[in-house]
């Protein structure tokens, strides 16, 4: 009984870890996408975006990214060590 | 004259004891105290029976017995082996190479005499 559950648990754990790594890999793309949005602001002929609003947006993105990175780094803490031997772990 | 027995043994006191017992029982006793030429002495004297110690200077009792069993004349000669190393593997070895009897020291005099009588019927 307990024999069966143990590997099931491990499976889940390593699955979680994989997805966390995927998350870590996606981070720069998320950041790039969010910070690329200001490129759209100059497109329209409409009202120009004020600097204070631009600052608010850019720094908010910054704050969120730093927090996300912090959460990821805590979640990946140590767990990645146990997976080191796994060849699939690194970027290909 | 009784039957001839040859005692091959290197401890003088033991030779003395065995000689005394056997002579008293009517045997004609000859003694020899080293291993080198023991086989030749046996061939030379052609005794009716040999008492052979295992730990002999020059050549071990086992080697002497093996040579005796290879020789035509001495193939069936009764040999009583004596040893002070009382381990069962010694007994096994002795029996495998053809000892007629095997006794560990210290022995009782009566036992020795009885064994000799069995090996060489008077």
């Amino acid at each position, binding site marked *: 009984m307990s024999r069966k559950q143990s590997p099931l648990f491990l499976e889940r754990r390593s699955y979680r870890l994989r997805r966390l790594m995927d998350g870590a890999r996606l981070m720069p793309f998320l950041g790039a996408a969010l910070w690329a949005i200001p490129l759209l602001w100059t497109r329209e002929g409409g009202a120009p975006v004020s*600097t204070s609003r631009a600052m608010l947006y850019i720094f908010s993105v910054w704050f969120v990214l730093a927090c996300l990175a912090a959460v990821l780094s805590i979640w990946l803490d140590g767990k990645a060590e146990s997976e080191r031997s796994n060849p699939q772990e690194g970027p290909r | 004259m009784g039957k001839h027995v040859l005692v091959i043994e290197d401890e003088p006191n033991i030779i003395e004891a065995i000689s005394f017992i056997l002579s008293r029982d009517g045997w004609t006793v000859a003694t020899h105290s080293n291993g080198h030429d023991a086989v030749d002495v046996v061939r030379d004297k052609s005794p009716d029976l040999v008492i052979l110690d295992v730990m002999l200077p020059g050549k071990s009792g086992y080697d002497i017995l093996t040579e005796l069993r290879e020789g035509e004349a001495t193939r069936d000669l009764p040999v009583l082996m004596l040893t002070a190393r009382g381990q069962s593997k010694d007994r096994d070895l002795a029996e495998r190479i053809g000892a007629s009897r095997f006794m560990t020291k210290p022995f009782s005099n009566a036992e020795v005499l009885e064994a000799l009588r069995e090996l060489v019927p008077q």
Partner: protein
Amino acid sequence: MGTLNILIAVCLGYVALLFLVAFMAERAALRGRAKWLRSPFVYTLSLSIYCTAWTFYGAVGFAARSGLEFLTIYIGPTLVMIGWWWGLRKLVRIGRTQRITSIADLISSRYGKSPLLAVFVTLIAVIGTTPYIALQLQSVTLSFASFSANADEAGQLGDHDATALWIAAGLALFTVLFGTRNLDANERHHGVVMAIALEAVVKLFALVAVGIFVVWGIGGGLSATLDRIDASAIGTWQVPDGRWAALTLLSAAAFLTLPRMFQVLVVENEDENHLRTASWAFPAYLMLMSLFVVPIAVVGLDLMPEGANPDQFVLTLPLSQGQEGLAMLSFLGGFSSATSMVIVAAIALSTMVSNHIVMPIWLRLAEGGAMISGDVRHVVLLARRLSIAGVLALGYLYYRFSGGGEALAAIGLISFAGVAQFLPALMGGIFWRGANRVGALAGLTVGFAIWAFTLFLPSFGPGVFLPETVFEAGLFGNSWLRPEALFGITGLDPLVHSVMWSMTLNTAVFILLSLLTFPQPLERLQGAQFVNVFQHTGNPQGWSGGVAQAEDLMVMAQRILGPVEAQSLFQRAATAQGLAGYLPDPTPEFLQMLEREMSGSVGAATAHAMVSQIMGRATVSVEDLLAVADETAQMMEHQSQLEAKSAELTRTARQLRAANDKLTQLSVQKDAFLSQISHELRTPMTSIRSFSEILRDAEELGQEQLTKYANIIHQEAIRLTRLLDDLLDLSVLENGQVNLNIQRGSLTALLDHATASTGVSGAGLRIHRRGLDLDVEMETDLDRLSQVFINLIANAKKYCDAPRPELTIRVAQRDNYLVVDFTDNGSGVPRDKQDLIFEKFARVSDQKAGGAGLGLAICREIMSRLGGAITYLPGQGGASFRVTLPMRMRQAAE
């Protein structure tokens, strides 16, 4: 009135503090109590050398001129940091496994340890970094000037050049002191890292303090300041798309490729896990650094007089408000930014220059290469120190001759674009196995040339390096070769134009030539190593055995690593191979390890060259290997892992077998011993039993026989008793349970006593004594020693077969040892028995002498208990035993 004097005093005090911090950190690291040094936050703070004086002063100026565009400089690194899982993690792992010392080392190492590539990268790095160092000197000088202008004491300061010179010299001294203390890349610069971590805190604190003062002290609160921003000249979002994207990309690239960033990111990295913390902490740091830039710029534009240099707002704004303390803090922040950048850049560049330019040249000039005599370490250190001085001198000269008039940000971006040329070779090298040396060289050349032609040389202005006609009509009159409009594409921002063309063509040429040409074998192995660094930590097979002299390697390694380090390295390797002593076999694994260790000191290419020289051959064998196993770099590594495993198994098996042999031997010995004891006990027992039966049963015995037989029983009983005594004695001695009774006594008396006890005096054996002019006083267990003497004399009496037996006892004293020889005139012990006589139950001759064969075994045990020895002396004309023992036995605890 004394503002400037106070400024100079504070400045000197701050520098003294930095020295102290660096010194303490070095000390702590040396004592191994450097736990707090290895905090991930120290690592994060050390990354802040990215924020130089350009950031501290220049960002405000940048913002005042172009609004929010300056943020790209921080957004790029932020993207790199939060994407650490892709690139940085791999770079750091590679840096650690390959013991990389610089970015030039990494690129050269990746592309087959190519010296040419290393030199090229080093040169570009020097060219790209020199203006940047000049920029730092300029900013410190300017900030001094701002202070003195404010205090109206300009006359007291002397000229700017002298200030810059003093700063350059001071920085050179600091860098030499703490940057070249030790040689191995593995021993990192704890002092320097700690000092720049402190500076990071100072500059952040200073900038935030100025920001808070500006927003709440001058601006009238948050919303008022925001309103003021929107009302200013930079009140709307007006960043050109092209520059926003290109600058972000450029700063991201530069973050990875700047030599100083590579130094702190990869080389000084203590632990891969620090990256995880830095991945969020460093973006947060950058965010805080840039948070108040726009408010400061806007308020500065409002309040400062027309024409004031916006690059100095951070300093001049507090000064204009009479906040001298805040201005001082701000000055220290800028000073910190400048100094930390210069120090690390100088270390990084000097490592590259000395490893890839100075050392190879020196090795070539010194005839016989690595084998010449003398310590190479001092040459390497000297080369580094000279390189540091040289780099700073170059920076100073650039500052002098460029006139220092340009806006700070311009030089920074030009420098970024220069080092960004490394990016294709670097990223291609760690992600694409197909990348090769030819591609990397060509890509770098093209990128560098375009950068120099379109950005670097024009930055000096028309007519300095590039004649005006080139700007107008293009190179050699070809209109499509105009520096700011390549291939006829006009209307682009010069920076975007240059970055676009140089990076695109660099990458294109790099990829194309990598596809078209064939790499060297070593490159392909290194390529697999770098790209698949997470899959194996082994190294490519660089060496396949051979007859290298381990001694030569040792001589060389000692000179590069230092004797202690080298010896312990060799000894470890020898032990791992199962050999005793200092010299391991020059197996491929060992050579590879040695090369890697040395590359930490002199760079991969030089280390490889040095080992090749000693091995007496080039890397041909690798080529052969590769020809056989074509696309099998991976397989080879796999195989080498298997080999390592099988070697390990073999070693374990050997150890097990040895242990088993020993056990078997012990068991055989025990059996033999028991069998012997049995024999020795049973033999007298046989006589006793037999004769006692005779006495009991035979009634006809005469008186004479009775006496004789009773005597035999008596003798044999004594023999048995003696045997049992000996056995017990031996067992006690062997188990070490014996209590020694140490007394003082005279040797003569002891010998007299021994002679008397054996009862030889006068009868049979004649005893001579020699060498005893004076009696010797000694301190040992006299009873035990006498037991040994008695045994030896009794043996002589028993076994000496000369017609007139004689025993000579010769005494001599050597140092604190007493040597007593017992030599008789008999036939002695046959050669083949000499080894055996001290063993239990060993009997030399066939003859019966009544002993059980334990006497000499007991003597040997006694002598070892007394701290001495007993040996057989061959060739003395008879049996001869030598007893040696210390005159004064130490009261050993056991």
